[in-house]
């Protein structure tokens, strides 16, 4: 067996069904071996989107996503996608071809030190020098990516190593890592303490982050919240941990969140922060998370505990495991109905009275309408910019629906490739991808991938012919001195859709929006809906 065949065999052993990639000369041995496998390859249109698609795939599938690129420019194009996954702790195995081992360091065609370049935003990386190491490295890579605080692992493998004969391989059953041992179970003493503080809490609050999704702990968290009547707020990455209409869910925290969620954080006397890190966009003053209240911080990553807010009870481990441990404790939370009424009051009184835009599509109203018309258990992928903030605060997330966006890195162009990847992990679920025109320009090459893979993604383009978020920033902070934010060069999105053979709808204002949305969502085909926004709209 050749090294490249061993790579494919290892992927099969890991249960990989789909990979996302783009070939080139020095990864051709691997792509050749894929032909003899049932693994399906999704050919993206630029490598960055291979990583985003693998990210969307992993987030829906609950496993590890795989993306592949060639050396040099291929590997370098992948970097933004890898960093995006790293910032949101998405488990990926990223494979890059590399030039001949003997030529390393001599600046040959398409040579780039990708392990060096990616060093600061991978969980770990391998440069493979001996093909016999492939099974061990693949096993370790999947284990490291998908355990502890998840993240991307890079495997850089020279073309001659892929072509080395290594005989039969045995895929290791277990990893043997001397140094990497993530904590899974929460410390029993700490769990008892958690039970103790909950039984004394008057205004308890659950603050849920993306780690809850990554640990597959959503149902466990909901059970805990619902059994004890504890309200839940979430970070951007935590969105869809509860359906929007749950009486216990009080929205997204942070400077882009809703005021009543921040008020809940400020007024609670006990916060259980789980799978979240009190990041700068979620809490501008992390002290308020801990001052005068009890803070429980549950996280897979020891280094996040106390980094931004110092908890009363730190609890390192896997969110699902810890919630199961907590379910085994006799936790009796005092009646929270008055606290819930208070929060409900804030929700009603603190809501910003928005003036609806009559001349254009009102983005907030439109997204509320669109998502209300979507099915349960659907997938919403959202890009970066004003569209993201509107979607975070106005989308109606239904039962079982997942909300996917690039939170930590804020990478424009994430929504469409992520939707294509998510589709491969979930046939049958309705998928809507929401982006602004700026982000659409960054990823519209993937419309071609969408059509080739017959992914019935409904793409919403909120078109204000502006980089709206930057324009808004310049409006507030530079007194409307607008610099490099106008996107007036087209294209005509209707004609573009026609060129790809994609069904197209256009909405110019909210008249007839309901009918248009119904038509857009109907049918199991791909469609683009262009919404014309006021260029001066603010979130």
């Amino acid at each position, binding site marked *: 067996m050749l090294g490249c065949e061993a790579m494919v065999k290892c992927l099969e052993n890991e249960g990989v069904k789909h990979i996302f990639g783009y070939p080139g000369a020095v990864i051709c041995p691997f792509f050749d071996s894929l032909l003899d496998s049932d693994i399906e390859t999704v050919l993206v249109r630029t490598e960055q989107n291979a990583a985003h698609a693998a990210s969307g795939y992993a987030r829906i599938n609950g496993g590890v996503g795989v993306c592949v690129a060639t050396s040099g420019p291929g590997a370098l194009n992948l970097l933004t996608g890898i960093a995006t996954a790293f910032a949101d702790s998405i488990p990926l195995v990223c494979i890059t071809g590399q030039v001949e081992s003997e030529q390393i360091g001599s600046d040959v065609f398409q040579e780039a030190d990708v*392990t*060096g370049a990616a*060093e*600061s935003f991978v*969980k*770990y990386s391998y*440069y493979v020098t001996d093909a016999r190491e492939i099974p061990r490295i693949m096993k370790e890579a999947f284990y*490291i990516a998908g355990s502890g*605080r998840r993240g991307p692992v890079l495997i850089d493998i020279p073309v001659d190593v892929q072509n080395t004969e290594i005989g039969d391989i045995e895929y290791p059953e277990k990893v043997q*890592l*001397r*140094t*990497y041992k993530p904590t899974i179970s929460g410390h029993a003493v700490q769990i008892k303490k958690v039970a103790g503080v909950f039984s004394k809490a008057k205004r308890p609050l659950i603050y849920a982050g993306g780690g809850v999704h990554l640990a597959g702990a959503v149902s466990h968290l909901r059970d805990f919240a619902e059994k004890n009547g504890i309200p839940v707020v979430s970070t951007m990455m935590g969105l869809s941990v509860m359906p929007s209409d749950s009486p216990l869910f009080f929205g997204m925290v942070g400077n882009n969140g809703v005021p009543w969620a921040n008020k809940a954080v400020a007024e609670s006397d006990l916060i259980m922060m789980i799978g979240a890190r009190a990041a700068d966009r979620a809490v501008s003053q992390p002290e308020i998370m801990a001052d005068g209240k009890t803070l429980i911080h549950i996280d897979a*990553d*020891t*280094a996040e*505990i*106390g*980094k931004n807010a110092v908890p009363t009870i730190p609890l390192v481990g896997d969110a699902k495991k810890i919630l199961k441990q907590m379910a085994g404790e006799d936790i009796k939370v005092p009646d929270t109905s008055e606290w819930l009424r208070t929060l409900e009051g804030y929700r009603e009184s603190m809501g910003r009275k928005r003036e609806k835009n009559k001349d254009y599509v009102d983005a907030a109203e439109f997204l509320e309408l669109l998502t209300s018309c979507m099915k349960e258990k659907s997938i919403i992928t959202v890009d970066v910019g004003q569209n993201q903030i509107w979607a975070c605060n106005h989308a109606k997330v239904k039962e079982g629906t997942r909300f996917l966006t690039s939170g930590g890195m804020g990478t424009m162009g994430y929504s469409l490739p992520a939707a294509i990847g998510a589709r491969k992990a979930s046939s049958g679920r309705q998928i809507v991808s929401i982006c602004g025109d700026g982000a659409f320009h960054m990823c519209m090459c993937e419309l071609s991938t969408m059509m080739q893979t017959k992914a019935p993604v409904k793409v919403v383009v909120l078109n204000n012919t502006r980089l709206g978020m930057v324009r808004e920033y310049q409006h507030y902070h530079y007194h409307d001195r607008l610099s490099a934010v106008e996107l007036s060069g087209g294209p005509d999105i209707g004609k573009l859709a026609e060129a790809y053979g994609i069904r197209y709808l256009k909405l110019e204002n909210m008249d007839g929006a309901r009918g248009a949305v119904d038509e857009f969502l109907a049918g199991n085909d791909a469609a683009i809906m262009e919404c014309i926004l006021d260029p001066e709209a603010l979130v």
Partner: protein
Amino acid sequence: MNNKVLQLLVDNTSGVLSRISGLFARRGYNIESITAGVTADPKFTRITIVTTGDDEIIEQIKNQVAKLVDVRDIKVLEPSDSVYRELVLVKVRVSAGDRQGVITIADVFRANIIDVGPESLVVELTGKQDKIEAFISLLDGYEILELARTGVTGLGRGISNVTYLD
């Protein structure tokens, strides 16, 4: 802000030193000195880093370093519980007249003269950092041509704090 000596036990993999120094660089942690060498078990490398920071920063450094896949163990070597040593080589310009003066200072510090040339001496001294600083400052009246310091290495005292290797 005070100096802290960190001791790391890491897997002896290619690139491990760059992973660790890279982490210090990108998170804005200071490295005063760094030394590395294999342990009794060649699978592992021991790295000693002198850094600065308040308790909170040191705690962050420990957590972030411990998280690296290659890192087996990290601890702070507290002065009261540890021994530190650093080695310095100093090349001093000397004439026949002042050669003896340098040798006398070296003798007081129990330093070794390891090279003698017509116009220079190379002195080797091992000791704690303050001893090395004191030695260098005593050479103030002479022209130091070149100076090379290894950086601090250290071990905890006794057997209570030993990290046993598999």
